[in-house]
């Protein structure tokens, strides 16, 4: 790998800056649909991504053909087009000055999924399926998808940074449809870990999916519609997590704030001069922390070779900092906080989240419920979306309950929380201790890049929210 990376970097000698990312990945996947083993797949991929700054213009080239003559041709074409683009650059692109590193970063697993045979993995999926079928819940649609990968990366840049990394990931995804009385409810869930096969047991997939199926059945049989009005909304960790990701993480991505993602993933209601503004109640702290071992968003050096760190996006209710790569940091006169990520060698690194969550407070979940005179406990959601400036968001409850005088009374059918971002975070008056992180895949960029992340937080309560 070293020789090819050095060769490719050498092709960029006329550039002000250049970096090379060389990758090799191995991925195996298995799909069980309604009890039937639909397919197994294995994929071995390698390739190179070269990014360079020349005449104030940014060029990127990628190929999976590692023949030197071919790499040379692709890089030369990229230099030619990037130079042509420089005539439209009134503000030449610059990168922030960062420390250089020579590091080897390898995540070791106790039990490597590659050492478990495909038959055993399928048996795991079949076991979950048969456990689910043993319940008295009718689940006509059952999707189980399991995959694992090992990605080896070599990063080199013209400033002398060299990072070698090896990151394993293992994911499990399920989707079910529960039917009763000619009605149906649906739910999906995703698990992800960098810790190897041991994580599978800890996920307790069977318990989780059976519990979900029972709750969906109960929701069909006993769920009532919400009477429109003003309620206290108790958001379970699942809902707090998606709100942290969508309405704090995304709008704090500096490339959105600067308009670079305008044509695709959108911009932000947040402007660069809003740091220090009160955006939530004083008890709200939201962070993005890539350094949490074992999580799907775990990394120590980003795809620009910058050492990453925990970022406080909201501190004591105030906007604290944005997510930066080297380009956005230079524009704002700052240092990168290590937020540049690329899905594979074939994508340019752009500003991304990792593990985004609301930090814990002092309450237990039971205390929050007991303290609520009238409210809606939205434990999980199914449908959600948010506008392209991250200002208007919507979450539709999947497992949800009506709370009266401190007690959960009955399930609610699809309560809708449709609210602006400032209103959501300003309304928080109680935060639980029970932080949970949930695996997710975050999409951004064009072509779209799906990046493994977690979204999370504890149970929180929003005071006096209008629900329809």
């Amino acid at each position, binding site marked *: 790998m070293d020789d090819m990376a050095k060769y490719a970097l050498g092709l960029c000698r006329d550039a002000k800056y250049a970096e090379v990312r060389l990758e090799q990945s191995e991925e*195996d996947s298995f799909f069980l*649909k309604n009890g*039937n*083993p639909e*397919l*197994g*797949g*294995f994929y071995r*991929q390698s*390739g190179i991504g070269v990014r360079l700054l020349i005449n104030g213009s*940014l060029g*990127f*080239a*990628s*190929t*999976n*053909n590692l023949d030197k003559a071919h790499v040379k041709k692709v890089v030369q*074409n*990229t230099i030619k*087009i*990037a*130079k*042509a*683009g420089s005539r*439209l*650059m*009134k*503000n030449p692109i610059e990168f922030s000055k960062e420390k250089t590193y020579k590091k080897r970063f390898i995540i070791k697993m106790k039990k490597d999924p590659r050492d478990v045979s*495909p*038959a055993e993995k*399928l048996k795991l999926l*079949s076991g979950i399926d048969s456990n689910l079928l043993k319940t008295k819940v009718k689940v006509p649609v059952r999707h189980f998808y399991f995959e694992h990968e090992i990605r080896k990366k070599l990063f080199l840049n013209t400033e002398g940074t060299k990072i070698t990394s090896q990151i394993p990931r293992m994911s499990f995804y399920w*989707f079910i*449809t529960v039917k009763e009385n000619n009605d*149906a*409810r*649906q739910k999906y869930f995703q698990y992800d870990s960098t810790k190897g096969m041991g994580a599978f047991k800890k996920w307790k997939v069977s318990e989780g999916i059976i519990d979900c199926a029972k709750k969906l059945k109960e929701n069909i049989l006993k769920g009532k519609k919400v009477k429109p009005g003003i309620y206290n909304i108790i958001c379970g960790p699942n809902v707090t997590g998606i709100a942290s990701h969508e309405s704090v993480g995304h709008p704090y991505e500096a490339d959105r704030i*600067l*308009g*670079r993602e*305008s*044509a*695709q993933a959108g911009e932000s209601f947040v402007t660069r001069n809003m740091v220090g503004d009160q955006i939530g109640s004083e008890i709200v702290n939201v962070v993005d922390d890539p350094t949490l071992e074992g999580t799907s968003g775990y990394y120590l050096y980003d795809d620009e070779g910058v050492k990453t760190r925990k970022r406080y996006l909201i501190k004591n209710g105030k906007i604290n900092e944005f997510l930066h790569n080297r380009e956005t940091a230079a524009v704002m006169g700052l240092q990168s906080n290590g937020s540049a990520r690329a899905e594979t060698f074939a994508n*340019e690194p752009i500003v991304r989240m990792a593990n985004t969550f609301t930090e814990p407070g002092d309450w237990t979940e039971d205390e929050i419920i007991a303290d609520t005179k009238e409210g809606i406990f939205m434990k999980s959601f*199914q*449908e959600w*979306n948010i*506008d*392209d400036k991250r200002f*208007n968001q919507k979450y*539709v409850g999947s497992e949800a309950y009506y709370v009266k005088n401190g007690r959960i009374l009955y399930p609610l059918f*699809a309560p*809708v929380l*449709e*609210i*602006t971002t400032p209103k959501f975070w300003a309304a928080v008056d109680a935060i639980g201790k029970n932080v949970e992180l949930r695996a997710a895949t975050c999409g951004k960029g*064009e072509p*779209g890049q799906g990046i493994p992340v977690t979204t999370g937080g504890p149970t929180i309560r929003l005071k006096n*929210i209008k629900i*329809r």
Partner: protein
Amino acid sequence: MDKNKFLKTLMSELQKKGAGDIALELRNDTKSQIKFSNNEIAATKIWQHEYVAIMFELNKRIITSYMEEFSRKDIISFVKKAMSFAKAMEPNKKYHGLAEGPFKYKKHERTHDKKVSKIGDKSIDIVEAAMNAAFSEGAKRCNGVFEFAESEETLLTSNNVETKDKGTGLYLSFRSHVEKNASGYSNQVCRILSELKPEKSGIESAKIAVAAKDPQKIKAGKYNLIMGPYPFGDFLENVGYSARISAIESGHSFFRDKLGKKVASKEVTVYDDGTYPGGLETSKFDAEGVPKQKTLLIDKGKLKTYLHNTSTAKRYNTKTTANAGLLYPTNTNLILKKGKVSKKKIFDGFTGLHITNLWYTRFQNYLKGNFSTIPRDGIFLYKNGKLMHPVKDIRISDNMLRIFSNIVESTKEQSQHSGWEVTGPIVSGSVKIKNVNITRSTG
């Protein structure tokens, strides 16, 4: 190793080890992108990837994989791994085989243009022309991507298919901004360079952005909508996806148990057409080598068929619709049959909202079709055919079957689209829909 020889050697080695059905698809894709933001070039990008996508069956065990190195040594090591992987799998009892060739193929028009691969650094001029046109209409800030691509595909199957095709594609995604809350979007796709009109995108997006200045909030409630071709494409795409038999089986479709039934108003006729002239998904054959075809999906509101490959068709005692992906049926070009009204006349006497773009469509329940989506860029309120004012901060929260049943008319002018919000490709005109539920944030 010569690529054709490579495919045949790989086929032969897999067969020697007992593989039954085999499909090998060699692809060579080259794509370039000019990404621009804030009136400058944000990045120029080039991708060049060559690989063989592989599907084979060993005693009903289905394996997918790909290779990107092309020596005999690579074949030997791949086949060894593939066989050990396949033997450890369980049989897929629902698999019923690949299509039996050989087939005769028609050449389709406007699918390849040798000028596309020679665009090179002239791509910057194309972007500049679009931006200058936008500025001339009042745009202050331009953002987007321009892409040009060429691909070659060779398909070899164990069932007497050996064929090739090639194609080119062009994509211009253009957003103009006038001020913080005033933007307009234009989307252009085609396969022939002479069909690309960069200035049109600049002008179209800028005009929407200028008209979108000073948007106002409106009350939630029921509104009639006129949706432009691109945002309606989002709904059309959901129709196409829901018609795939794999979506029906997976519980991801509002067309489950609806075959032969009314699923839309009589104004709605939809085709999945892999032969559409100039369509981005137009090509000679599907992933198992069956010649692509035009399939009537919805006829005057009635659902006529699901989309199949050979295996799923056998399972349901019907014929393939030539929609095979490597494993599951997939869509080609989704076409809404032309309406009768002109794009000017459709606004005559119209009271409701004109939607120019959408994003972030999500379902609460795929089987029922309950969903919401968010209008993006210019949104305009009309009363009795007169433009009243631009609108902001609304959401469409409704049901897909109800939406299609409430379609009143569509325009005779149509355009093809594909992009960030609508993968497509789709071909549609503007579409009028009555009584659509509009919601907004309650706080």
